[in-house]
């Protein structure tokens, strides 16, 4: 393994060992909470659409809204400052503190202030800065960076926090329980807030009409920070502005549910500073608060720091819709296992972190962890503003690829059949051009399989391509699905429907049996099937960030299928990740009409079978059972598309007893699990699925899975073999 890959693998291994368990417990809990909390909404999808529309409109009109907000804030008696970058913001905030002769600033949690690292600036100016959010305070005491945007210290267990506090503060009685630790922090921080000169908060949203800022919190520290001292500095990105107070409603309903799975956080502070509440001057403890000076000072510091350029960037713009809820981190199987310290750049971590880092820090920072997004798409439906996060990650990967300079460019350029510039790494090129490898593999099978299995080959593959030697390689079939299909008589009398079975790379070259089973199943149900010679969907290059190549595939696939669609044929797809391309990514590549036609005509194979059975096709044409017990793992992209239920329904209809896994992802996600730097993480993520299929209830069940990579991962996790569900129901002949 190369040194860089080895170092990356070692870092991931170390984080899995030290922080993995604590991160997993919290993020999985938040994620589970989200599923339950959003069920309480009458119209979850409607609310998300509304939230997105508000953000789209606000970012579109941002310059005007900023002008309006400035007028409003000034009318209210506050000051608004737009800082170009971190240094500008820090200088302004330091000067405010110096004007007040501030000795201590108390701060409530704010990712934007983490982004500019304002604490360092203030501390250098001899201002004491105290984080009052309990999680942030733990990190301040431990001198560590946040590992999650909402719950910054989730990587630390209660025991670790107790040890930290006991060592640092040496309390009379050692602190132990969560209650004791919390009350200790409350006491310490309460005193520090009482003597503070300036309170600093972030802002989740700011309304242009009234200058009202919304702070989403649960502890009450933001309230104390804003109300106790007479000076309030709020720090936020320019993208936080929304037009009117009423626009806050969908966000307030979505943010807690999406993030920590709370129905709503304890406090939604809607402050229009300078606020009317009297200051609480603990230096003068005996004067009634109503007699205090009410002359409060308020500064809203809005930070550009790359955001206005992001607004002009067609691809990164969506990142500005992000409301920092953390749903994309919590739902992410990889994040659940390594947390933000592996999944983070300078400031932001998790799914949307790549977009933020690319926008505010630059590609170098984004590149560090961009690979950890496998494109599984589970975050797209978790996101309350419907941001296509995997697409942003793919775009950034593409830009990183293009920025890379490799010394072997001259060797590779021109030899690989892709549309990419020279910079793309050999590893990415190999996986991105898997279609070519598969064709060669099948042509020379079984010799190709035998050659690739030798230890010499495996060593070379690991060294030059970063393919982990511990991962079993796919076994190419000499007779492809297409060969088999062409050599047989497939005439169906009086067909009820006509269809194309899309021969994806794996079905055509490796998992040929599931393709045959699909053909037999469709024909048994009265469908006239053709298997044409169509190029691969482009999923493989897309996963490597090779967007130009993926787009090239998209045009070829559409050209190859359009005539069949014109004939009235349905497109039946076995591989869910390819169907997801047709239904999502192709929107970026094809004309709107072409995209719509292909998407509307395409069905997942079990979805299609479900439809045929619903429309009167005979169930007894398929293999039924008395009560065979099946353990079923759907596929991440298939679940995102809402299709797993069709497989369950068909199997149940045919008499199977189905137990379905509920892990977000198997950990394989295409090429990810083959890469030597990620192999162990992939297996760690997979261990959850393994656990679900090895309980007393499931360990003897027949294993079926929808996706290629899920099947490969299950085969490496379990002692018993796994198959595609269509192989279970296909008539045996």
């Amino acid at each position, binding site marked *: 393994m190369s040194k860089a890959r080895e170092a990356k693998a070692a870092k991931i291994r170390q984080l899995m060992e030290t922080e993995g368990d604590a991160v997993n417990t*919290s993020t999985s809990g938040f994620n589970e909470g989200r599923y339950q909390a959003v069920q309480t909404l009458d119209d979850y999808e409607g609310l998300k659409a509304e939230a997105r529309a508000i953000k789209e409109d606000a970012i579109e009109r941002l310059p005007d809204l900023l002008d309006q907000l400035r007028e409003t804030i000034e009318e*209210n008696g506050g000051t608004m400052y737009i800082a170009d970058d971190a240094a500008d913001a820090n200088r302004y905030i330091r000067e405010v503190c110096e004007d007040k002769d501030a000795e201590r600033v108390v701060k409530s949690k704010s990712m934007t202030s983490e982004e500019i690292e304002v604490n360092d600036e203030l501390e250098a100016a001899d201002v004491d800065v105290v984080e*009052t*959010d*309990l*999680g942030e305070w733990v990190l301040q005491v431990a001198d560590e960076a946040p590992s999650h945007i909402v*719950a910054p*210290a989730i990587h630390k267990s*209660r*025991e670790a*926090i107790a040890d930290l506090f006991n060592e640092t503060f040496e309390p009379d009685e050692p602190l132990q329980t*969560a*209650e004791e630790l*919390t*009350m200790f*922090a*409350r006491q310490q921080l309460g005193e520090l807030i*009482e003597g503070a000169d300036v309170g600093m908060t972030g802002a989740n949203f700011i309304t242009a*009409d*009234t200058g*009202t800022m919304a702070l989403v919190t*649960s*502890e*009450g*520290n933001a*309230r*104390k920070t804003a*109300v*106790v001292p007479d000076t309030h500095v709020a720090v936020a990105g320019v993208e936080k502005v929304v037009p009117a*107070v*009423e626009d*806050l*409603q969908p966000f*307030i*309903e979505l943010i807690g549910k999406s993030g920590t799975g709370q129905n*709503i*956080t*304890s*406090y*939604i*502070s*809607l*402050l*229009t*500073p300078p*606020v*009317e*509440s*009297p200051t*609480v*001057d*603990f230096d*003068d*403890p*005996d*004067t*009634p*608060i*109503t007699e205090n000076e*009410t002359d409060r000072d308020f500064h809203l510091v809005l930070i550009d720091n790359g955001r206005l350029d992001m607004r002009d960037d067609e691809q990164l713009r969506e990142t500005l819709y992000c409301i920092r809820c953390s749903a994309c981190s919590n739902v992410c199987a990889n994040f659940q296992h390594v947390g933000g310290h592996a999944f983070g750049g300078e400031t932001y971590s998790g799914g949307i972190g790549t977009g933020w880092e690319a926008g505010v820090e630059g590609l170098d920072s984004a590149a560090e962890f961009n690979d950890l997004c496998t494109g599984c798409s589970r975050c797209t439906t978790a996101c309350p503003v419907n941001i296509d996060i995997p697409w942003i990650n793919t775009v950034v990967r593409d830009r990183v690829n293009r920025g890379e300079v490799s010394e072997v460019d001259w060797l590779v350029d021109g030899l690989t059949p892709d549309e990419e510039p020279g910079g793309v790494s050999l590893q990415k090129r190999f996986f991105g051009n898997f279609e070519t490898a598969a064709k060669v593999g099948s042509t020379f099978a079984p010799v190709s399989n035998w050659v690739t299995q030798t230890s010499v080959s495996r060593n070379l593959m690991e060294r030059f391509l970063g393919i982990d030697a511990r991962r079993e390689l796919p076994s190419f079939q000499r007779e492809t699905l297409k060969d088999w299909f062409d050599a047989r008589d497939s005439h169906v009398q009086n067909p009820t429907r006509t269809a194309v079975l899309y021969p994806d790379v794996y079905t055509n070259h490796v998992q040929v049996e599931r393709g045959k089973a699909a053909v037999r199943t469709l024909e048994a149900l009265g469908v006239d099937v053709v298997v044409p010679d169509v190029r691969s969907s482009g999923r493989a290059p897309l996963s490597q960030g090779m967007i130009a190549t993926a787009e090239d595939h998209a045009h070829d696939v559409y050209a190859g299928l359009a005539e069949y669609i014109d004939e009235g044929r349905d497109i039946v797809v076995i591989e869910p990740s390819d169907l997801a391309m047709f239904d999502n990514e192709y929107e970026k590549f094809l004309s709107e009409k072409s995209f719509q036609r292909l998407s509307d005509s395409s069905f997942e194979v079990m979805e299609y079978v479900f439809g045929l059975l619903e429309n009167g096709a005979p169930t007894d044409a398929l293999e039924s059972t008395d009560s065979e017990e099946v353990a079923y793992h759907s596929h991440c992209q298939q679940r995102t598309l809402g299709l797993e239920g069709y497989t369950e329904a068909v199997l149940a209809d045919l008499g199977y007893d189905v137990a379905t896994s509920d892990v977000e992802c198997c950990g394989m996600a295409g090429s990810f699990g083959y890469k030597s730097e990620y192999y162990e993480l992939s297996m760690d993520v997979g261990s959850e699925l393994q656990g679900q299929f090895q309980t007393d209830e499931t360990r003897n069940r027949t294993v079926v899975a929808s996706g290629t990579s899920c099947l490969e991962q299950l085969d490496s996790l379990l002692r018993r073999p796994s198959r595609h569900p269509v192989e279970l129901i296909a008539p045996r002949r």
Partner: protein
Amino acid sequence: MSTGTVATFEDSLERLEVGWTHTSSGELSTVLREVCDDPAVGVELPYDGVELPPWVNTDPTPADLRAANVGITAAGIAIADYGSVVVQGTPDGVEPVSLFGDLHVAVLRKSDIVSGMPEAFEWLGEEFRTGHDSAIIATGPSATADMGALVKGAHGPKDVHVVILDE
């Protein structure tokens, strides 16, 4: 506001483990005495003919806030679906009084319970544009899970009690 809205509000409070009492203006003092431990601080209620009892300190100093067991304030509205009370920031100190004690008692007219967040934001928008410039949507007590388990009363009140005035 229908009976259904009140029942929904009560269900939400139940879920949040927040206590509530229905009472009349005349019986308010008795109810408060049962719910509150001394020392209590408060802000006079903006309802006609309703006053806080004399044992509630309605002109607290910072030292009183620090020592208070209970803070008693009015709530502008309550939101049935969420069990939230909306505490407005006023010059007489509703915000700090509701924040420093271990228990926050929110007094509310039954007619001020709205069903959901859309209704609440209609009200809030109007309030903000006509001068009442700050409000907290408070749902249950202060809480944190940052120390490894859910603990109530991280910085703010550990408990909340809602007193509903049935006019």
